[in-house]
């Protein structure tokens, strides 16, 4: 399936990814090439085939509900772009 520039703009909005207008046209073309490749899947007979999410069909391992991690807030926030009083700062969300 081919996508056009407006599809790319919608996808970029969903993915919170800025794509310049010039890049959008080029991206639409290259993504259409990728989709043409993956469209070969449609010819496969997959009736009654169970989707496979994990190569060994493993399920989530459970553990006891106890604290195993120590508090590392300071070291983790040391690399944040902006923090204050132990909180991450972002532009004002609520007026």
């Amino acid at each position: 399936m081919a996508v056009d520039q407006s599809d790319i703009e919608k996808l970029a909005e969903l993915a919170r990814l800025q794509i310049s207008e010039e890049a959008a046209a080029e991206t639409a073309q290259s993504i259409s090439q990728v989709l043409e490749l993956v469209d070969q899947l449609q010819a496969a007979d997959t009736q009654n085939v169970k989707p496979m999410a994990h190569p060994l069909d493993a399920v989530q391992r459970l553990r006891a509900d106890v604290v195993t991690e120590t508090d590392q807030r300071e070291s983790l926030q040391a690399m944040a772009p902006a923090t204050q009083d132990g909180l991450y700062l972002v532009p004002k969300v609520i007026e």
Partner: protein
Amino acid sequence: MHSKTIAQLISGLRNKEFSSVELTQHFLDRIAAHDDRYNSFITLTGDIALTQAQVADQRLAAGDAPALCGVPIAHKDIFCTKGVRTSCASKMLDNFIAPYDATIVENYQQAGAVMLGKTNMDEFAMGSSNETSYYGPVKNPWNTNCVPGGSSGGSAAAVAALLAPGATASDTGGSIRQPAALCGLTGIKPTYGRVSRYGMIAFASSLDQAGVLTRSAEDAAIMLNTMASFDAKDSTCVDQPLEDYTQGLAASLNGLTIGIPDEYFGEGLNPKTAEAVQAAIKTYQSLGATIKPISLPHTHLAVPAYYVIAPAECSANLSRFDGVRYGHRCEDPKDLADLYKRSRGEGFGNEVKRRILVGAYALSAGYYDAYYNKAQQVRRLIKQDFVEAFADVDVILGPTAPNPAFEFGAKGGDPVAMYLEDIYTIATNLAGLPGLSIPCGLIDGKPIGLQLIGNYFAEGKLLNVAHQFQQATDFHQQTAPATA
């Protein structure tokens, strides 16, 4: 010292032929002298390396030396290293100092290995040529006009140029085996879940697996012994008994059955690559193996299924890079949406953006069944092909990549042409099987890779089959012309 294998370095260190500090300084000097040509490292960790080497020398002197004590290695820059920049070759993480070590990094530290530095790669491991790195492309030591393969191209080039005796790497669709093929190395991707993914920056979580790049199967066995472990911190790590991969290397191949899949010798395969692989098959026959033609009928669907599943998982995994907690943040965001969009738009390169968008498309309402669900169904059919094949054969053999190393820019703007370079390696990741590449010849002075695929947790068998080939041939001992 730089032309010695890891096995030789271990015995040289133990026999006091040289110290770890001497050895480490030697490799650091080589990197300083030669890496301008290859760009195989993003970050050098000389101070850490020399400190680790001093500790290793003390342990060697005290007779308390663990497996890799004093042996210098390089880590792909996808593995978190505490206190050291871990960039994943992306502008997004150019300023990221990892707050913890990946489990495999810890495993190597405990085994006494010395970290020389962090190697270059395709951005977020997305690529087959190392051209997508924020830090510039890596050059192939065999021919610096050509790519080293990807995504572990820096690890491959460093080992091929004898700037490190071995390196860690990761493989989501061929990122260990294809660079091994293009740089004339031995590279193994273990069974999915055999090696911990904790601290390995995620690309496609159901496909990613760490492994090693070395100059022989014996060295790969030695390095994998340390890398493999069960890790409760990785929920997909499999709790299987560990084995010593060096133990079975010497076993005879008498009675071994090797499957040759028709589908791996079809259209698109360079005839000279096919010739070299056919010659390798003859070598195996002379070593006592039986050759059996097999079919993996869904092979042609592996690349299409992969380019739904991998981008879908990538778009989910890379949503964590939001400019809030770490990594690149744009200047003067006007609101939160602008902060997200511009930070990500500026921080990610084109191939990463393309895959995020393809993934968002495959997962979006209305397309999920047609793409994601369908790809997961095809994934099971691909696995089933292998399960049926392994009922009759011990290992599967074919080419690793259709062509030897290609020139920079050769795949131009066509992403699909690049994706098809991984046509023989991708199915192994979809099925979760172990795969290995060893050198089996040269075309116009450029190496060709032979791929061996094993059953689940048959890494030992694969390494044995590779080692026996290397006892009978000397392709793995050939080094890039400019390395002396």
